[in-house]
């Protein structure tokens, strides 16, 4: 009984880390945009869904094998992200928050409608590059897709860290996030760096979408709940902290699975599956009210 409970517990942890990895990627995308543009991109989930449909079209309709399609999709997403910034975000960037929020909402509505129009509402199947095998590690059954998801997510995070810490572009990106005006004075091409940020965010979203689709099925609203978990992860970790986004994502993934796990064993028995999303939303509300900067963020000081 105890052994069964333990292996069940470990399985929940592994699958929690896998979904947490996806939340972390999307949260990272939100953080990159928020750091540079100061706005929460409500269209992030729809952008990710669009990327995933492109991958699906490449593999299913054009017969590409998975990894070339994966890379091509990320390249297209990157271009799309840069394009979106140049076309519609840049003109309103210096205006009020309301205007930028409305533009991202417009993107959300338009992209969601386009995906429904182009691909229809029925769910499609995007296969996992890691197969559907499961392994038995000391009594704990883990899915290959979950392990693959964790590895890809951590790998991407590592690559981003290298980019931000050890390249000139990364330095410029960080400079723009800290102080765009001074960055411009020392010769950083600020608008292109902001566009690059949008490109990176779109790419991260594409990865998150392609990792989500095999488990939940590809449909036009697939990323809506994932986006909300990513919001919660980003807010929990600190909306301006990349490290916070990753930690927040993983913690949230495991935490939500723990609630389900505990409710099976009697504790928190009021917790049902439909309360998973409200639980994440409650985290958003509580963190925003109690510690708006999140765990890793610095509190904002406003100068008058």
């Amino acid at each position, binding site marked *: 009984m105890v052994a069964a409970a333990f292996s069940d517990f470990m399985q929940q942890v592994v699958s929690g880390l896998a979904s947490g990895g996806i939340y972390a990627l999307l949260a990272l995308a939100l953080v990159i945009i*928020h750091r540079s543009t*100061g*706005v*929460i991109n*409500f269209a992030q989930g729809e952008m990710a869904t669009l990327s995933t449909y492109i991958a699906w079209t490449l593999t299913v309709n054009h017969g590409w094998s998975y990894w070339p399609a994966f890379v091509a999709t990320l390249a297209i997403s990157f271009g799309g992200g840069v394009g979106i910034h140049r076309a*519609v975000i840049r*003109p*309103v960037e210096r*205006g009020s*928050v*309301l*205007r930028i*929020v*409305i*533009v991202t*909402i*417009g*993107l*959300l*509505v*338009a*992209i*969601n*409608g*386009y995906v*429904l*129009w182009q691909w229809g509402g029925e769910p499609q199947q995007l296969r996992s590059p890691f197969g559907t095998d499961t392994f038995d590690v000391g009594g704990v059954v883990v899915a290959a897709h979950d392990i693959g998801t964790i590895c890809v997510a951590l790998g991407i995070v590592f690559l981003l860290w290298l980019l931000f810490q050890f390249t000139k572009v990364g330095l410029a990106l960080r400079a723009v996030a800290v102080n765009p005006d001074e960055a411009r004075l020392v010769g950083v091409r600020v608008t292109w760096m902001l566009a690059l940020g949008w490109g990176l965010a779109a790419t991260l979203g594409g990865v998150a979408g392609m990792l989500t689709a095999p488990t939940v099925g590809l449909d036009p609203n697939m990323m*809506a709940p994932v986006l*909300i978990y990513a*919001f919660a992860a980003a*807010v929990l970790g600190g909306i301006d902290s990349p490290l916070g986004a990753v930690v927040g994502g993983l913690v949230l993934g495991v935490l939500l699975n723990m609630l389900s796990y505990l409710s099976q064993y009697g504790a928190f028995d009021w917790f*049902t599956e*439909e*309360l998973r*999303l*409200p639980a994440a*939303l*409650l985290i*958003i*509300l509580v963190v*925003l*009210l109690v510690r*708006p900067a999140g765990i890793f963020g610095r509190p904002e000081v406003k100068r*008058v």
Partner: protein
Amino acid sequence: MSPRTQRVIGFVAFAAFVAFIAVLPAFISDFKARDYSYVGIYLIALLGLNILTGYTGQISLGHGAFMGIGAYAAAILILGRDGLSLAGTDPPGWLPEHGMRPIFVIPLAGLITGLIGYLFGLPALRLAGVSLALATFAVAVSLPLIAKHYETVTGGGGGVSLPLPTTPFGWDISTPHWLYYEAWTTAGILFVVAWLVVRGRVGRAWRAIRDGEVAAVSSGVSPAAYKTLAFAVSSAFAGVAGALFVIQVSYINPDTFPIGLSILLLASSVVGGLGSLSGVIFGALLLEFLPIYAQNPPVLDFSFSKQAPSVVFGVVLILIVLAAPGGVASLLRRGGRPVRLALARRGSRPSRLAKEE
């Protein structure tokens, strides 16, 4: 143009609109009357949202959820404990035993929702801009799920049906026409209320907070009091709209007020024109008729797919923000400028001549 002529033009336009709305049912079918009742209902919801977002500058992505709260409040009051147990749920004892007449429920639903909005406004005071958008978004997403969870009160995922609406007091008009007048009379009253509030002291305080909170504080305006007031008023409007909606369709389930509705409400109030009461009318027309006409444009001889409206809506929304941040209302005002300039020139000519002499 002097403010006085402006006021006269505004008043004439409003009176013409009221007259149009009053006689419209005589020329349209019952079916169309239903469409136009929805316009009235959306008008009320958008008035509320415009008070919060347009006049006070607080972004809300949760207005549809407050409509939902009003709708559930109305449904529960209309059914009462008796009605709910007939609908197959097991209602808790604190609910009133007997249902109420729908027409009395409408203001009550507004009051209840306004109170809830006030309570939500208290913690929301700490949030501004994007954080508030996110928090209200969270409320809008969780409301349907919470409604599903507490099924003894809400009927759960299956929803609850209400008795079909009928014309009360033995009046001799068809039910759709009665619902039309019910929606539009309420809309008219609330439009005037909104106008009175917005043009007075309270409205000035709201605009001051929107345009510069620090300046508002230093002029003696308390942002906390006025922001929570804006939340309360805006939610009360949403609650009334939700109650009218549920009476009209006589059925409610958690998916009647999805996050998409909240998003469309914000979008159409931006397209109509934030901070403008006349813009609300365009927003409401758009919200009701764009999905219908974008599918089958009456002018061109082709039809789009069902999803084309949202693509059009999204693109129009972005274009409006980029090109005309004041929305349709400001475009009309700008479009009317040549006429008004001519009027103003004619009016001012003698004085200018007098000055030149």
